[in-house]
């Protein structure tokens, strides 16, 4: 992506403006469109075969038949399936994701509201997960087979296998109820809910923009527990992967060479071995970040965190398909975006990829 001129295998230089950077860009866009289209089609079809009547979400169980029939027609549900899909896709191409039945607002507005909440939570969780997971993995690898290794592995196993619902409630019971170290469910104390006008939708940033440090610390005390619970999950995964990548690297000959040369053990571990581990690790972190960005439904429910996971789940349960499809596109776009990001990071971390 960084060089316009490239050598072919036989050594001839050729202009690759289009077939290279541009070409891969076009290929990328093309595969994006195919992927998103497939995603839409499948989600749309699933939505239509669900045994849930979407009109019910709009008018409720008690509406008279005449209203029900009218709304059903307004929602286009009496048209043939292909026509419904055609209308939906052509609306999307014009930037209109339709209106959510459950919130009676445009889906795009809803997503602008719920996605930042998830983004904020996932980002803080990933930062915690990386900051603790990598050192723990390295630590375990260095002490392979001894008690620190076992400790990290057990800690990781527990984090990986504990139901998040239980973990969340226990966390609230201990750190919020008993100890009072953190704040309870919600993004801010209930009393503050309408003190903040969403600018970015990220509470930590919005409170700083308004320059209200009390609210900022309130937001911090609300996010720390759910983020830690989510982080425990990704931490366990990251630590395990770091450990196995590190073990592989530490057994390599260049490590032996480095030791023979008398380089300090710290430098060997943190610079030489970890440096090489970072490349595959980026994929691991990116994947776990993308997973968190889908929104974690259970965590969001327990911590009454109005994020994407809850939004999509609630919409799905009421067969509010505009909202589900809108959410699905966001999740798809997030996955693609995070993958692109990790591609870019690859190039920064791995000199070979830059060539």
């Amino acid at each position, binding site marked *: 992506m960084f060089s316009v001129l490239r050598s072919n295998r036989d050594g001839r230089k050729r202009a690759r403006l289009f077939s290279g950077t541009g070409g891969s860009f076009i290929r990328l866009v093309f595969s994006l469109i195919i992927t998103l289209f497939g995603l839409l089609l499948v989600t749309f079809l699933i939505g239509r075969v*669900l*045994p*849930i*009547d979407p009109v*019910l*979400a*709009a*008018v*409720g*169980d*008690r*509406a*008279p*038949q*005449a*209203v029900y029939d*009218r709304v059903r027609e307004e929602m286009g549900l009496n048209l043939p399936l292909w026509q419904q899909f055609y209308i939906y896709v052509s609306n999307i191409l014009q930037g209109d994701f339709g209106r959510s*039945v*459950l*919130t*009676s*607002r445009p889906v795009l507005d*809803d997503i602008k*509201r719920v996605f930042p909440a998830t983004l904020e939570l996932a980002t803080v969780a990933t930062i915690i997960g990386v*900051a*603790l997971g990598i*050192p723990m993995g390295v*630590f375990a690898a260095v002490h392979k087979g001894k008690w620190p290794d076992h400790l990290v592995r057990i800690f990781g196993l527990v984090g990986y296998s504990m139901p998040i619902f239980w973990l969340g409630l226990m966390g*609230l019971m201990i750190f*919020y*109820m008993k*100890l*009072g*170290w*953190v*704040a*309870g*469910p*919600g993004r801010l*104390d*209930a*009393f503050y*809910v*309408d003190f903040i006008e969403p600018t970015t939708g990220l509470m930590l940033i919005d409170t700083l923009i308004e320059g209200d440090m009390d609210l900022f*610390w*309130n937001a*911090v*005390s609300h996010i*720390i527990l759910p983020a830690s619970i989510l982080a425990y999950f990704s931490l366990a995964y990251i630590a395990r992967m770091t450990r196995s990548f590190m073990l592989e690297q530490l057994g390599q000959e260049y490590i032996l060479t480095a030791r023979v040369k008398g380089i300090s053990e*710290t430098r060997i571990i943190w610079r030489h071995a970890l440096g090489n581990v970072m490349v595959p690790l980026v994929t691991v972190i990116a994947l776990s970040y993308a997973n968190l960005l889908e929104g974690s439904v259970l965590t969001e*429910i*327990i*911590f*009454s965190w*109005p994020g994407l996971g*809850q*939004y999509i789940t*609630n919409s799905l*349960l*009421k067969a509010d398909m505009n909202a589900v499809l809108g959410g699905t596109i966001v999740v798809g776009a997030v996955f693609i975006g995070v993958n692109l990001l990790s591609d870019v990071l690859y190039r920064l971390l791995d000199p070979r990829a830059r060539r």
Partner: protein
Amino acid sequence: MRKLIAGLVLGTALATMPLSANAETPKNALVMAFSIDDIITLDPAEIFEFSGAEYAGNTYDRLIGFDNKDVSKIHGVVAESWDVSEDGKTFTFKIRDGIKFASGNPLTAEDVAFSLQRVILLDQSPAFILGQFGLTPDNVMEKIRMTDDMTVVMELDQPFAPTFVLYCLTAGVGAVVDKAEVMAHEKDGDLGHEWLRTAYAGSGPFALNKWTAGESLSLTANEEYWDGVPEMKRVIIRHVAEAASQQLLLEKGDIDIARNLEADQIASLQNSDTIKFQNQPKGGLWYLGLSQKNEYLSNPKVREALKYLVDYDGISSTILAGRSTVHQAFLPDGFLGALNDNPYTLDVEKAKALLAEAGLPDGFNVSMDTRNTTAIMGMAQSIQATWALAGINLEIIPGDGGQTLTKYRARQHDIYIGRWGPDYQDPHTNASTFAWNPDNSDEASAKPLAWRNAWDAGDLTAKTDAAILERDTEKRVAMYHELQRDVMANGPFVIMFQETEIASLRNNVHNLDLGPSFDNNYYRFVTKD
């Protein structure tokens, strides 16, 4: 390595530093956790959901109201007084002077007429409540009209019982909206509907501050409210879906009221010295719908047997733990004409005898569509156990709410276990669904509960229609008694419980006024010490 350990220690220390001070909610603000994700609109002409109705009840004044303690006491709110013509077909309402909308505009007869007309013209879900009087989009402009600044006349197509008409006007569709304000936001002749779905134009004790769908709803007190300014200057309702989270917030004092605690949480808080409970019977009924398309369930003896096979007291005291009382008639306690004797108890021998009479001494197989919530599943399992005693093999088909309801509405169930909530405070609301079915064919245009269960209500349909024309209240009550007895004995419904709402409050919160429906849960009298 030492650095690493030091780092870990420092990290732990930082992470465990107390970040939150134990804050109490302010004295003049009411903070409440409530499952409010059912709100889909804020327009009173469209609202038909529980928490939406509660919002409208606190922010809009209605034409007529009733006493929460004694529903039979009907009084005027926006209407100062009313007259019914000799022939019973014309109602004349005198409008109260001195009511002001949040915009500052005075409330006049023009607003009242507009609000009622608007309900019919917009024709949203609750519009039928007024439509029952023969009002249609074509005739409403002449049937409802202002005759002077402070008088509104409403003409009906039949001489309905005055109680019927007045109770219907106590529903959300009787809310008065600010005509000037609403019409200022009109788009393409929508009578300001699109705007009002997320905005406010009322005169109630509270005004809308902000609604974030599925997140929070906040109200501010109307400092000029004509009937007493609320002591709570702000009301903040936070959507908390998980009951366990509501409990924690309440115990910690971060909220004043939790609205959706489950039976086990209420039990665990019984001995708390900081939390108290307030119980209010609501109109919701738990019942089984027995499809008459099923060969066994269409047998009257079988239906009767099933009514003797429910452990009413057991379910009410354990599974629903205080959140219901046994109630077997289709009119909930508190409604005009409600029957409160509950003739059926768990009696396996009697049920067996009835099944033998029906030619099914060994029972039969049948399925029940069951929503997968704790309470409904618990009820279904108890019923499964008691039915097994009489040899009936009940298969529970679990599903999400939308799923089971869709199947029920399409008449594809054997048995449906569910909840029915009345639409307005008049007995006709339930009579017209449990005892009324003018067309039992699959293509019927009206689809009451009797239809969903494919039950031909016979002459009950005509009797139900007659009851709304009976202008003598005594006689009207007697008619509803008869209808209830008939449905109880012969109908395809095993009506089991009447819902009780339990609000959990901090000890310092007083005077929350809970009514028989969510429409009449009022915050305006709340005080805190």
